[in-house]
């Protein structure tokens, strides 16, 4: 048990060691980290560590963060080390880890290590297992990792608010001795929901049901990184979900096995094959499959509202309504008015460039593909499987060049 004096000494060292700015750490490349194939955090980064007498020492700084959900939408969030979600913590089963947590928030905080077996006093539940970390102070969590799998970290003080404004991150523990079978591409995706009212710059923590912004690693389509995969790679995607809703995550063109939860690996005979994995609230799920067919494969939450950016939920239903007379008369009243919705909402994407919206708000439907408008937002991205991707190369290869005769085509009947 660490004494109070030692604890304070460590705090002093930790204070001295606080980085001057919270900049993004580079993605670690496999060569630099023997022992495991590092996880790729879409749009994100890993948390660096220093070895101190055999202990992996990490430093998290809980602080306000100005975060872009996409260009033109900058939001005042809270996160870690300049990011939301916070940088991904990676270690190996058996490692002793020491996590310094500096609080630069305007209120107190803690960190709970979701799914991790540890001494009760390190569990991070404010009021129950520790006093909350006051603003300006640094606390230390230290424990030995007794498991491997996909876990998360998040506050357990004023949890509703701090989660609502973006404080969370992935905590990956690799098995000792490597994976069998080998995982070629290992991705970490934190799912989340936000209520950012149109024309505002801050999430609304009071919202319980009416979220309007749905993210993977705090980004919306078309600004979520694509998953770049070499044909034949075994790919794993680790999902975390600290939002208020379950998200059914769906892959096109493949089926996968659900291989783990935040409780541990699922024995192979017990694994469910699915094309859609429901990721419950407060859980993680690992899925794995071999990506043996090239192409641009859509990968998204299957709740159709979750693949839209902000939309109005109370608007009158204009589907099938003849608006011609109304449009003619409205143009006199409101110059630039256009009727919308009679034949559905698809044409909306084409109009947003000449019909501006509120400040700091992304249009509901975005994205352009090689064949036209993609009309998506929120939790949508693409798994790009290519024959000619080098191992370890994650650069976006552009759009898939379909072999002749393999694209749906028009016919006259």
């Amino acid at each position, binding site marked *: 048990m660490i004494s109070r004096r030692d604890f304070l000494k460590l705090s002093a060292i930790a204070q001295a060691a606080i980085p001057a700015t919270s900049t993004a750490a580079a993605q670690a490349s496999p060569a630099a980290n023997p022992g495991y194939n590092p996880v790729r955090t879409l749009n994100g980064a890993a948390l660096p560590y220093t070895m101190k007498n055999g202990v992996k020492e990490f430093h998290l700084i809980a602080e306000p963060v100005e975060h872009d959900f996409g260009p033109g939408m900058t939001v005042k969030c809270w996160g870690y080390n300049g990011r939301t979600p916070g940088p991904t913590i990676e270690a190996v089963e058996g490692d002793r880890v020491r996590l310094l947590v500096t609080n630069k928030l305007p209120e107190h905080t803690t960190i709970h290590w979701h799914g991790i077996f540890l001494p009760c006093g390190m569990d991070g539940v404010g009021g129950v297992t520790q006093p909350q970390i006051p603003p300006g102070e640094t606390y230390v969590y230290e424990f030995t990792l007794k498991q491997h799998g996909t876990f998360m970290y998040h506050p357990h003080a004023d949890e509703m608010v701090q989660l609502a404004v973006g404080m969370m991150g992935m905590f990956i523990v690799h098995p000792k001795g490597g994976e069998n079978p080998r995982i070629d591409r290992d991705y970490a995706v934190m799912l989340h929901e936000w209520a950012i009212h149109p024309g505002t710059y801050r999430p609304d923590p009071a919202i319980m049901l009416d979220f309007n912004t749905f993210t993977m690693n705090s980004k919306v389509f078309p600004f979520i990184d694509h998953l770049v995969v070499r044909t034949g790679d075994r790919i794993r995607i680790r999902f975390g979900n600290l939002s208020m809703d379950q998200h059914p995550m769906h892959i096109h063109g493949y089926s996968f096995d659900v291989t783990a939860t935040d409780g541990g690996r699922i024995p192979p005979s017990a694994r469910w094959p699915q094309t859609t994995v429901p990721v419950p609230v407060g859980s993680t799920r690992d899925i794995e499959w071999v990506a043996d067919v090239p192409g641009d494969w859509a990968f998204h939450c299957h709740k159709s509202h979750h693949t839209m950016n902000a939309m*109005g939920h109370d608007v009158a239903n204009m589907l099938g309504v003849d608006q011609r007379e109304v449009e003619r008369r409205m143009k006199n009243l409101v110059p630039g008015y256009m009727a919308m919705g009679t034949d559905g909402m698809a044409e909306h994407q084409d109009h947003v460039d000449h019909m501006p*919206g509120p400040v700091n*708000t992304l249009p509901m439907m975005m994205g352009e593909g090689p064949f036209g408008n993609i009309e998506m937002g929120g939790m949508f991205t693409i798994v790009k499987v290519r024959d000619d991707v080098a191992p370890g190369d994650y650069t976006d290869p552009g759009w898939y060049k379909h072999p002749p005769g393999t694209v749906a085509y028009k016919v006259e009947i």
Partner: protein
Amino acid sequence: MHQVYSRMAVAALMALSTAGCVSAPPRGEYPILESSVAERSGFDTRQLSEQDGESGVNLDDVIQTRLQEPLTADAVVGIALLNNHAWRARYRRLGIAEADVIAAGLISNPSLGTVFRFPTSGSGTNVDLDIAQEIVELLMRPARRRLADDEFTEVQLRTAHAAMDLAHRARTAYFTYAAAEAIRVERERTFEAADIGLTLARETEKAGNISTLELAHHETHLEEHRIALTQANGAVQVARESLNIIMGLTAQEPVWFLDMRPLPEPSYSLPELPVLAQTAIEQRLDLQAAGKEMEVVAHALGLTRDWRLFASVEIGASAEREFDGEWSVGPAMAVEIPIFNRKQDEIRRLESMLRESEENFLDLTAEIAANVRESYRLTADLEQLNASLRENLLPGKKRIVQLTQLEYNFMLVDTFDLLKAKEEEFQARADYFESMRDYWIALTDLERAVGGRLPDTGTSDTQAD
């Protein structure tokens, strides 16, 4: 004896001869009326007399020509002063007052009496010839003329005040009408917005997307706006007819229209209250008339007191022809002896009237001071309010429409939300026009309170155009 009587006779005859040149005031010339109104408003009351056919200008033609131009508040006042029939009737009363001036200069005609007597027995004819002339009137005549001039001045002052009152009523009616028109336009726009909403609701219900219950809400919403529109139309009609009466228009359906900007932004900066109070004391015609009335009554009281013992004196001549043909001739005189009647009743009446005039004067002074304070404060408050409405309310509602449209573009709100924002914009505009009307009427009331022109504070014209 002969000589004394001759001299008296000559003096009387000379007085008579001058009295014969009765200098009645020239018909239709009211210099006090004209100068008072012109100084205080720039308007000419004199034009009225030109229309009496002497200059050959036809009043109807003049009015019709003016009605073809867009009317400003000043134009309406000008037409009213030419053509308002109640005012023209009041003006005619000046002629009656003129008659009182003439009457003050008249003296009684001499009386000639003759008697023929025939003897019941005998011959011959006895003839009496008497001529007599009342001379107290003659002696009092200059004093009575002065008093009559004073009274005539008072009548002109009161008439001038009535002219300023007409101008005030004309302006007030003008602004009322202008605002009613502007508000009516906003109610029409609001009705159109509600009707568009109803049209959309009907199409939406036809498509099966809303219930008949929800449609019923839209239908009844429109009827509420119909009530407001009808009321606005009514207010316009009432205001227009008010102006038709003020301008004295007798056509079946008078045709005229307003200037483009009948309710402009204020451009007059108010002086301090003491300046306005002083201007009121100097300019108010009814106050001057009330002061003149006190003078006139005091003057009449003095005159009555001074001459109370000189009731009536007649001088003349008498001639008689005797039966025998002998004529005798000589002067005659009759004097009323003031034993019982020394004008006690007239003096008492005039004393009481003087007290009454004094109280009326004080009452008017209090009223004027209150008028000035009230309209000054109201004008100042409304000017501030309107500046705020112009800077904050109107642009704010416009901005709400624009920002709502941005949300509409992204399908975050719907057409009904946009229509609601427009309805609120129209309501704000109507509220603004009401407030602008109230300002211009308050300023007009202030003009009336100070009795005419507002003091020059170096800013542009206080008149509404």
